[in-house]
């Protein structure tokens, strides 16, 4: 019984964090057709910005704010400098963002260390739920993740700026015809994507710890979720985040040594059976 | 209609995309050695029909039988190798490859150790086909000396130097036909070959189509406009909303009241 509760609580938290990590990635693909392979590095850098701010004596909430705002500014800059010059060549975009990710790994690793670091929990204390100890920190993290995802959904569907993003992800030419400034919207999406990555990075650093090379694992998780859900599909990504999050949690409880392997095998299976993802459209 | 001289039999073919019934319960035969016109207004399902015959789409119902063999659901390349080739409505050349290489691609056998002839033999065949469909004639005489089969001319044919981008619309059509002919088809499907061509070019292409028939090939020519086809084809099938509306000689079909109605009374009459 307690195992089931443990899986449910932990699985929900992990899934929500994975969803956060994946949403920015899928939005950038949806709107600009760009596979940003430095997305994992964004999350990692976000976490380290917070760690650096903490080291300089900032309080945790303030450090987190610095990280989120910092990444919201860094991501559009990254787009302008590294992605835009090669935007028309998907292969060069992939290679460029991959190289940039390795450079970011090295820079962070040299500035801090290549060892794993942990962010302190946002709130202390815990309570017991059906015999399972649940920290308030996890509850708060899950709540924040859910709030961010809901907020994003409302933003996209209810505001004019959000609708512009939606329109652009559906039909680029059509969006241009009705006067949507594609360049500006794309910059905005990069900013949102950077902020989301930072939030995901902060929570992941706080629950599981983070190291510079960890960004590759984050990228693979985001990539997997997005492909599983269908590239460019936000609801698909949410579904996929929960499938991968829960299956990883279950495997961790049942056969810890097979962790990582199981979700990869699952992903390969789904890709083989349903090449366009769960809710996907064919990739360009 | 006897099955004896039917090269291709389309039997009760149906295909829907979502709610749109593109082809519905369509049956007809293509006889060996004829030029068959397939006519219908835009959106009548002509291109879908070609896609079903060549295996690009799988039909919901019905069968396609070629030379007595059921080829329904075969992959495209297998159907092509069985002897059905198709020239696309919108020419889609391999843009980064020379004109000659575009044609040569159709000559490559699939077996890795298959005897695909020597490189020299393939080059010769490519030159033959380029001349055959009139691609070489697009250049002034001096530049195309290399195309002559008699001369040594290897490497000097403009088709071996130039990319498809240099070709005008009529040239791209010819390249499409060259690519299809290079697969040595028994049955050649031409999708709107006359669209956007000047009258002189239409005449030239019609002559080429007749010549291909003289070589023993069977042709199906699709058009939304009957005028150009009247003197070219032996038989016409009119398709409307994915169904067969009429079938017969060009004269019979042109007089058919149902056809005239479908075409807003008289737009397809001769002259």
């Amino acid at each position, binding site marked *: 019984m307690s195992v089931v509760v443990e899986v449910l609580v932990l699985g929900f938290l992990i899934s929500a964090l994975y969803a956060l990590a994946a949403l920015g990635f899928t939005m950038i693909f949806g709107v600009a057709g760009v596979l940003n392979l430095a997305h994992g590095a964004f999350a990692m850098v976000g976490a380290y910005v917070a760690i650096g701010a903490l080291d300089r004596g900032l309080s945790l909430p303030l450090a987190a704010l610095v990280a989120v705002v910092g990444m919201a500014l860094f991501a559009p800059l990254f787009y302008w400098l590294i992605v835009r010059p090669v935007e028309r060549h998907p292969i*060069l975009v992939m290679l460029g963002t991959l190289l940039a990710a390795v450079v970011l790994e090295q820079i962070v690793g040299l500035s801090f260390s290549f060892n794993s670091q942990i962010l302190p929990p946002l709130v202390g204390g815990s309570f017991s739920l059906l015999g399972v100890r649940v920290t308030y920190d996890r509850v708060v993290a899950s709540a924040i993740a859910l709030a961010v995802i809901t907020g994003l959904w409302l933003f996209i569907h209810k505001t004019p700026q959000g609708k512009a993003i939606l329109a652009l992800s559906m039909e680029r030419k059509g969006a241009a015809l009705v006067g949507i400034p594609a360049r500006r919207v794309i910059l905005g999406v990069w900013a949102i994507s950077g902020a989301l990555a930072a939030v995901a990075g902060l929570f992941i650093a706080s629950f599981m710890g983070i190291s510079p090379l960890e960004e*590759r694992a984050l990228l*693979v998780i985001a990539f997997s979720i997005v492909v599983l859900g269908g590239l460019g599909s936000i609801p698909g990504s949410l579904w996929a985040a929960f499938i991968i999050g829960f299956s990883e949690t279950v495997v961790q409880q049942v056969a810890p040594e097979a962790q990582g392997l199981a979700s990869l095998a699952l992903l390969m299976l789904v890709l083989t059976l349903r090449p366009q993802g769960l809710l996907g459209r064919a990739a360009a | 209609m006897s099955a004896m001289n039917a090269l291709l039999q389309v039997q009760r073919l149906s295909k829907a995309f979502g709610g749109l019934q593109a082809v519905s319960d369509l049956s007809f035969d293509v006889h060996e050695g004829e030029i068959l016109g397939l006519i219908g207004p835009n959106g009548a399902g002509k291109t879908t029909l070609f896609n079903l015959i060549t295996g690009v789409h799988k039909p919901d119902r019905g069968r396609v039988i070629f030379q007595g063999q059921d080829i329904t659901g075969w992959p495209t390349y297998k159907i092509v190798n069985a002897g059905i080739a198709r020239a696309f409505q919108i020419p889609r050349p*391999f843009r980064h490859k020379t004109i000659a290489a575009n044609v040569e691609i159709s000559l490559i056998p699939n077996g*890795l150790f298959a005897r*695909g002839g020597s490189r020299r033999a393939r080059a010769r065949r490519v030159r033959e086909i380029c001349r055959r469909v009139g691609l070489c004639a697009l250049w002034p005489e001096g530049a195309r000396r290399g195309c002559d089969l008699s001369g040594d001319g290897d490497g000097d044919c403009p088709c071996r130097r130039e990319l498809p981008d240099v070709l005008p619309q009529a040239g791209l059509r010819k390249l499409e036909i060259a690519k299809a002919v290079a697969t040595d088809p028994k049955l050649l499907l031409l999708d709107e070959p006359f669209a956007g061509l000047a009258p002189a070019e239409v005449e030239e292409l019609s002559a080429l189509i007749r010549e291909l028939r003289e070589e023993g090939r069977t042709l199906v020519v699709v058009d939304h406009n009957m005028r150009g086809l009247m003197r070219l084809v032996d038989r016409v099938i009119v398709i409307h909303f994915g169904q067969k509306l009429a079938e017969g000689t060009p004269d019979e079909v042109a007089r058919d009241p149902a056809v005239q109605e479908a075409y807003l009374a008289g737009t397809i009459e001769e002259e």
Partner: protein
Amino acid sequence: MSHRSRLRSRLRSRSRSRSRTARLVKLGGALLALALLLGLPYWLPLLVPAMQQNPFLLYKWLNVLVAANVLAILGMSWDLLGGYAGQISFGHSLFLGLGAYTTAILSVLYGWNPWLIIALGGLVAAVGGLLVAAPALRLHGPYLSLMTLVAALAFDRLMRWLKPEVGIPGAEGAILCVPHCVLTLDAVLKYYYSLGLMLLTALLLWALTRSRVGLALEAVRDDEAAAQAAGLNAAKYKTLAFGVSSFFAGIAGAFYVYHIGSAAPADVLNLQRSVEAIAVAVLGGMGTIFGAIGGALFFKVFEELLRPAGTLRFALLFSLALLILLLVRSGALGRLWAGLRPRPSPPREGAEAPPTVASASETEEAEVEVKAKPS
């Protein structure tokens, strides 16, 4: 001889001589590069006097070049799959690793002839490549790239989990196979072995891409539907590309084990190896095969030159690669190669005038222009 025909023949001979010059320059350049590589152990000490006093300095650089040759093989194998077949693999470390682990295990257990073991490493990698190709045939674009990436990661996890008990087990599933996996202790000889293997790979892959198979691969890459309509079995050609590419990547991994004496997940199964393979192939020029050689030489030589920068060198190296990518876009070396290749002349932009049968009324200039470049 009329004025017109004189113009014509002058034009033709000019274009002919131009393509002949290009061919000569290319051939000359290739021969010069070959001679430089073959004579390197002899001319390098003459150029760097320090190497005459200290032979170990020479050996160190020869080892750098051995690594460059291995990376070149890996890059060329990636180029066949990515540049020619259009299948962008992020998982070449999988094939590299399969070759490396096969070699490490076989050399310890059986100690057969090294070249036999290296060939077997390639074969095992090829089998792995075919296994990946089976699901990959159904996937396109980023989906395919992810598939290869995931396959490589899964193998990495598998090795760390299994921890093969062969040779001297190292950390996290590594195998130390020294002294079983030693080809030669002579650094110069090892350089020539690696060079020979690299050149052989280049020659075989180049011949393949120049054959009808190469043309078929490019057709499948550029427009799969049109290739099918031309009667080409796209799945078969893609599978072939996966098999051949993974074979040579496996050879690279196998030789690498004989070079450094171990197979470790953090080394041969590192995602960074896949990134390097893509980087050298793309920076050298995709779809050229030989470009990857230049890319690999550049990459490894700079990695060594940046050694004084200490821990900073990888950041600098990858930044440099990124900078080159952004500045030159499609590869500096690639452009050089493209310039030397007897390529069909690209049509000028905005040229609408179709080349038509020259009529008598046409002016001299117009006809000459049409002949030179119907655009």
